[in-house]
């Protein structure tokens, strides 16, 4: 049995320790918000937070998450901070096809919680592990910058 915290709740699984975290989330816990774009840790669509650090869930065998605190978009989207990010993503026009967006939001959240007032360069670096093919990134950069301002003091 592997025990860990998932979106604020203590959970456990009897799945084999070599199973990828993304598969556990999507198949056993039916959390579809975490998307798979490459399975190689290259695109960031499967980004989740593991103990407050953003990670690619396709690269993590679940044997490594014993006792860890996992936050996915499915849980994060119920928070007040998410609402700010969601509004800013909309206002900046940051969402096109949407497939990269849950991962991008998790990367944005991780960046802002570590650095509440990032410069443009820091934002670009912060989301450089998350690919987007639709937007050319600038409107996502704008969204994060806007969220930093709107959520001033609470990140």
């Amino acid at each position, binding site marked *: 049995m592997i025990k860990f915290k998932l979106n604020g709740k203590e959970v456990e699984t009897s799945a084999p320790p070599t199973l990828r975290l993304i598969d556990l989330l999507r198949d056993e816990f039916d959390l579809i*918000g975490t998307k798979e774009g490459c399975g190689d840790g290259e695109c960031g669509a499967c980004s989740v937070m593991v103990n407050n650090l953003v990670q690619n869930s396709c690269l993590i065998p679940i044997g490594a998450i014993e006792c860890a605190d996992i936050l996915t978009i499915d849980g994060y989207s119920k928070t007040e901070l998410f609402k700010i990010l969601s509004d800013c993503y909309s206002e900046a026009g940051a969402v096109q096809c949407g497939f990269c967006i849950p991962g991008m939001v998790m990367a944005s959240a991780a960046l802002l919680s570590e650095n509440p007032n990032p410069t443009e360069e820091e934002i670009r670096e912060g989301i450089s*592990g998350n690919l987007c093919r639709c937007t050319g990134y600038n409107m996502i950069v704008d969204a994060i910058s806007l969220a930093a301002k709107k959520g001033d003091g609470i990140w």
Partner: protein
Amino acid sequence: MLNKDISTSVKKKEHDGKVSGQLPYISDVKLDTLLYGVLYRSPVAYGKVRSIQLPPLPAGYEKIGAEHIPGNNFVKILKEDQPIFANEWVNYIGEPMFMLVGPELDILYQLLEQVEVDIEEHQAIFTLKEAIEQKDQAGIFASHEFGEDLDVIQSIEKNAHQVIVEEYETGYQEHVYLEPQGMLGIYKQDEILVEGSMQCLYYVKNALVSALACEDDEVRVIQSPTGGGFGGKEDFPSMMACHVAVAAKVVKKPVMLLFDRAEDMEVTTKRHPAKFKYRTALDKQGNILCMSVELFLDSGANAGLSPVVLQRALLNSAGVYKIPHFHAKGYALKTNTVPNGAFRGFGAPQSFAAIESHMGHISKKANRDSIEYKRNYMVKQGDPTITNGKFKDPVLLEDMIMDLMKVTDYAKKKAEYRSFNQKSNRYKKGIGASFFLHGCGFTGSGERDHIKATVKLAKTENDGVQIKISNADIGQGVLTTMSKIVAKELDLPYEDISFPYPDTKVVPDSGPTVASRTTMIVGKLLERAAKKLKEQWQSGVAQEVIEHYVHEEMIPWNEEKFSGDAYPAYAWGINFIEVEVDTLTGNVRVEKVYGSFDIGKAIDERIVKGQIDGGLVQGIAYGFMEKMTSKSGRIQQKSISDYGPPTAMDVVHIESKLFDNPYAGGPYGAKGVGELPLTGGAPAVQAAIEDALQISFYQIPVTPEYIIESLMKKAGEALD
């Protein structure tokens, strides 16, 4: 009410579902008794299938092959040459031969590895170069020739001061939509339902009717939320739909086919590699006397969409210029490689990269600034097109160029960079520009003769209105823009307009989501439908209105002769790009990007900005970053980082501007915007790198390796 200017942005219809991750893409769909499919793909580039030996299949696992197809074993795009399951001949590495279906993916992959096939190998054609050399034996899928008589060209060349002969090549481009291809076939008592990631519902439906040899109402297609397309989900999904539909019919269970990234990169369609050969005669002052171009597209193993990609490539072969005595000839050629298909721009990005490069190089020969040189040849309103059509609407290129030259302080910047480059040994700066257009909608009479779009609006008893069209939101904002047009016409709140993901049981065929046609053509039909509904409006009563495409008469298009108006309207654009090149490593840093566009009228400024930014970044990357190659018929880049699309760190803020120029045939004056912004990226970045290094390049992408090679060659020449 949507009383504001239509261009004022609104929240996108599907925003909440996408940002929270809860809007289900096809890979998010869970069903009981779901089976997966995996495809056995040809390991050989060209050969005759002798035998296929399967390992013993466990209970619940089945092989689905050509023998299970009740109808035609091909997907007809234009020609009947794409087998659904290649059971006699294989024409490229990766061609699907059969499918294994069963409940566990791991077991399916193990079984695939135990399959043994015996294929009699034949001599394959792997490169465009070989295809050009052997084109008469190897296969020409399409060819066209038009323009000035070659006799006239010859006599002009004879008397010319000089004739510039130049070759230019463009490489593959991979779509890298973030969501890999996926399709689900569901067996039902009275129908086969196919759901998946796609741009063109009725292409998929027509392919299914043909493969299943069934009645129209026995198949049904629903678009899932689609994680990016860029043309990659135009023609390709039809094949996958046939795979899952045939399988679902046999096993009487739902069958899902999902590609992983490596499979998606190796076997799905890409942008056609192309080669151009120019002959341009100049007088003493460097003025153009005549120009002839031959262009060749690498179609891959099947015709697919290549004949129409070739048409668009040819139609753009003179760029935005009025060239005296212009002649063009083009071929779509067969090679035993993965079939190439639609990609945002559809042949135009290759042609614009080539003609912009060529015009730039000629201007250098003439010792003139390339922008000033190109402006001498720029088309104006009333000018003929290269097919003797007419640019009947205002052309704002000149205003756009004047404006950006002022904004960039072009002359001053040129001088500054020249002096910077004199002082700096390692880093060199440059500025380059590109001028381009995009013909909106289908080429020629395609809308009238082939597409024949129909749209419906359905009003409920509660006075809500639903849009019924087959056009797919693939991220470009169709759900939102179409809803805005209808809301505005009906004086209803935008929120009262519903636009569910389309289902062929419900929506008529309003045509495919391609060719920068949705806003301009389908949007106009919806505008008219909404006007009609408004006239007939009866509160509390369910009503439905239908509108059909009406052709705007132009100079009639003749495909055989390649003459007449190829498009009803043109969208225009210009880019200025500034770069810094590290001559030690060959790395290019894009420092500034400007774009000005005439797309008629923006239906939603923020959505248009998204199209500009995203398209331009794809176009710039096509020019210097993204490199895909094929070796002995095998795609060499199997992962995203092998290929190298841009990350947020490769991109800078884009200064873009729209020039209003409403087009009477589009809703509120809108023209197409989807493809245009990609087109100018590559030629502008190439021109900027050339300006920085004072070297000419003859292919894209201009990679660091190519830069270093060219610098070494230049240094060698200087020593000689």
